[in-house]
Every structure is written in structure tokens, then in C-alpha cells.
């Protein structure tokens, strides 16, 4: 039910690169899972409120007091390519996508 084209489209949205074998396997596995999941599509749940979260959430503000934040050299310590106090990345311009 999920074909090759759809797998490639979703992989692109997911920023994943799949080889041909992975595309085949993924199409089969996702189809199998979705076939099971499809059972909920036939339930009549018209008018039921969706639950995105079980805790009642309210926006909260922290007290406006100074605190120890993470120093830049620590934030950069795990970076694959730190560069003059920043994270260096390849150019986003090169891809016309």
C-alpha cells in the first residue's frame, strides 16, 4: 500500500537517504504496520476530542534572576566542527532544493 515513490518522498522529508534494498524493505514493513494501524480509521470517533497530552499544560515563566548558563566552549565541546565560537556547517546554498 506504500509504494517506492512514497517511501522516497517520506525519506526526503525525514532527511534520510535509503539505498535500494532499504527502500524495498521499508515499503513492505511500513505497509504491514499501516495495515494494522488502519483498523482505527474505521472507528466512528466523530466529535471525540483528540488528546495530545495528559497533563493540563499552562505556560510558565521562570523568575527573572541570573543563573549559570552553559559557557560557549562547553556547548561547543561535543560539536563535530567547532569554528571560532560557532558551529560550522557546509553551505546551505549549494543545494538548489
Amino acid at each position, binding site marked *: 500500500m506504500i509504494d517506492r515513490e512514497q517511501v522516497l518522498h517520506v525519506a526526503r*522529508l525525514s532527511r534520510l537517504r*535509503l539505498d535500494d534494498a532499504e527502500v524495498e524493505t521499508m515499503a513492505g514493513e511500513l505497509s504491514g504496520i499501516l495495515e494494522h*494501524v488502519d483498523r*482505527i480509521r474505521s472507528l466512528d*470517533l466523530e466529535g471525540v476530542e483528540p488528546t495530545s497530552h495528559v497533563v493540563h*499544560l499552562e505556560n510558565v515563566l521562570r523568575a527573572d534572576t541570573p543563573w*549559570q548558563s552553559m559557557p560557549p566552549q*562547553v556547548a561547543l565541546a*561535543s560539536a*563535530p566542527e567547532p569554528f571560532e565560537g560557532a558551529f560550522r556547517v557546509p553551505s546551505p546554498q549549494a543545494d538548489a532544493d
Partner: protein
Amino acid sequence: MADLLDLTVAEATAKIAAGEISGEEYGAAWRAAAATDELNAYLWTAEHAESLEPDWNGDGESAPAGEGDATPYGSNAAAPAGSGPLAGVPIAIKDIFTTQGIPTTAGSRILEGYRPPYTATAVRKLTAAGAHVLGKTNMDEFAMGSSNENSAYGPVLNPWDRGRVPGGSSGGSAAAVAGGLAPAALGTDTGGSIRQPASLCGIVGLKPTYGAISRFGMIAFASSLDQCGPFTRDVTDAALLLGVMQGKDPLDSTSVGIEGGIELPSREDLAGLKFGVPRELGESAVDAGVRAVFEATVAKIEELGGQIVEIGLPHAEHGISAYYVIAPAEASSNLARFDGVRYGLREAGDEDLIEMYERTRSEGFGPEVKRRIMLGTYALSSGYYDAYYGQAQKVRTKIAEDFDAAFGEVDFVITPTSPSVAFELGAKTDDPLAMYMNDFFTVPMSLAGIPAIAIPAGLAAPEEGGASPLPVGFQIAAPAFGEQKLLDAAHALEGALGFEGGARA
């Protein structure tokens, strides 16, 4: 030494406080035990009690002094306090919790070598109470799995039978406690990742109410479902650890805490309590041996004065479908942060940014993580959002309403924890859906956000035969923030069941 390792955490802390045993000897005995790990339960172990030397930037440099509890960026936040209710107790920590200066991988290659600059609140609460980090435990990559076979660092073996899985995703934590490599461990449960491995390894596993314990520093999988909790040898230790870790945290705005805290349970009967058995259980796919243990446990509840009442959870059968839309949808968003920019793996490419993202993520993530990212992205994509994600959220509402209705009649809902005992390594790796079905009994509570405990209730031979009997878990669920009553009841039942952990011997 051996008798030090036989003590529960509550027993050990009492003896340390009374001066009957030395906290240093106790810690050393556990470090020596952890060093003998043949189950691949640990990804990192502490060699010395003081091995948490601050090294938060990788150059051996100490972090600046902190400003108290409000900030996690102070010096050596994982250093154990000298005293407290857990003084001297070493605890194994699932590798999904960030620990300042200690490698944290979440079972993924994409985080290999990562040393976080801060420590998760749950771990900080343990160490502030005097506990030590004994080691970081193996797990399914980003907590996605039910067998621990999805770890980038190899599977964990079940201490009862090394040809079988310990369950997942917190398989290393469960195996460490069951295998005598840790007195207690921390895990996380999104759809059953504490309860199912506890069941398969014959120990106690508690998933608290969503919001009971802070999620700060827990690497996110599905943020509306993730909750951390303890693996212990008995219910009293689970209460002890929950009591230390629970609480509202300014660093996690979804944390609530448990009003009134948690006391150690002492109840020994179940008089006046009603236990609901879902009538749908009769139709469910459960191994005969597991069903027999469940029925014997129900009889035990009645002997203790508890009343068994049939209840209905008509939407629970759709739990797996709703969960495998909602959890992957949230995961596809949460895992966007692993992009090769700020930490972890980067697959170099001078090409362009998108290509670097794609190569990094394709090399760094394993097959199950890719599958769930794809599934979640599909369910959230234009044209499918309402049909999948919207509908799954409505099913979630119905499941929560089913529990609300049940708790109008009964105090607890009881089920088996897992449909089978521990299965053989490799038995379900080729069939994702069969693997997902392991979570059939645990997922509904996760979707409803309510607390549930798995306690070992007996042994059963695997359905396919030819192996020694293996542990069977019993699950008890309670209304939101009903942990105290849940632990009290579980304590009474545990005493009557008299389960003897056999894996350590």
C-alpha cells in the same frame, strides 16, 4: 561480599546508617560485581566511587560552580552527596539519561562518544540523596524496541537464559538488576519499556504517572508519553527510589510531582480493595503459561481479601495502533535534532547542508529508528495527518475514558505484563509488528498517562517448549498519581506471592 549483594537497597541503607556495614565496602562490592558483566548490560561502568571527576568539556576542565538547584550547569552535578536516604548506594542508569562528563549514547551510533555538559534531574535527585552512578546501561536505540536487539552496541542477554532477550527498551537496566550486577536501576517507559523487561527478567518495574518525575535530561523519544522509573528487586525499593526522584522541576514544565510524597509500603492485606479484570482479556493472545500464572495471582488477591470485578476496556485493543502512530510521530520530530551540527556523529560532505544531514542520519541511525522516523513523518504528512495522527489522538481519548470509567468502580486494573515469557534472540527481529505486540498490555496505561507496576508473579515454560521455566510478570495499574496506594497493594501481593529471584544464583 556475597551477602552484601543479597541486601535490598532499603536493607543496605538501614545497615549503612546503623554502622553495621560500611558504605564504601558496599559500593566497592557492587563495582566489582558490575565489572563481571557478561550480559552486555553495561555500556560504561564506574571504576571508582569518585570516578565522576568533572570533565564537562572533554579537556578535564571543571565546570564553574552552580547556582543551586535551579541550574543543571554547575560543577559536577552528578557527584554523590555525602549523606542522604540513598547514601552509598550505587545505581545503574539507562544510557538515555544525560550524565555530566560521562558518555551518553542512548544506544545509538549517532551519539557515540558524546559527553553531556549537564546531568538529568532524575539522576541529580538520586545523587543528591547520596547515590552513586554505578554505570550506564545498554538499551534499544533511542528506547525504540521491546527486546534490546536494536542497540548499536549489541544485544543484552537475559540472565535467566542467555539465549533469550531481556525485553526492552530498558533491557540493560533490567538484566543488571536481575543478573546481580546492580542493586537497582533507572529506566524509561514510553509504551512499556520498564514494565516489559522487568517482567521478562523477574524483577519489579514501576512506570509512574506521566509528570511524577522530571523528564529534564532524558533524551526525548515521545514527549507526551516518556516517563522514567525504577527497576528494583522488590516493591519497597521501588517506593524508596520513586520517593527520592518525584517532584516538580522548574526545568520540565510538564512535571507535577506527587502530592504528599511517597512512604515505604507496609500493607500486608488487600481487604476492601477492588481489582478490575478487563473482560477483553479472555479474547487476547496470551500464552497458556502466562495465563495460568495470572489466574493463580488473581486467586491470591482474593485470599488476601481483595475483590475481583470484571470491567470493560473496549478501546484498549486499539492501543497498539494508536501508539504506533503517536509515538513515531513525536519521535520523528524529536529526532530532528540529530543533524550532525551540535554534537555526535557527522558524516562529512563538503557538498551541501542537506546532503550532510542525510548522510549523517543514514549512517547514525539503525533500522528501527529509521522505520519509526519514516512512519511518524508519513503519519504527519499532508493528506494523512487527520486520518492517522488525528484519529490516533481520538483513540487515546477513548482509552483514557475507559480507564476513568473503570476506576469509578474499582481501585486497580490488573493484567499480565507481557503476553509471553522471554523469547529467543532473533525470534522477532524480522517482523516489526510481532515485536510491537509485546506492548499490548502496557501501551494503554502509557496512552492514559496512569501509573502501573510490574511485579514478578511466577514462572512458566516458554510456549515452544524445551527450556526451563522463565519469569512471568503481573501488572497493576492505578488512577493518575495513585502511586502510594498502588505500591501498598503491590507490597501486600508481593509478600503473599513469595517469588524467589533465581537468575542471580
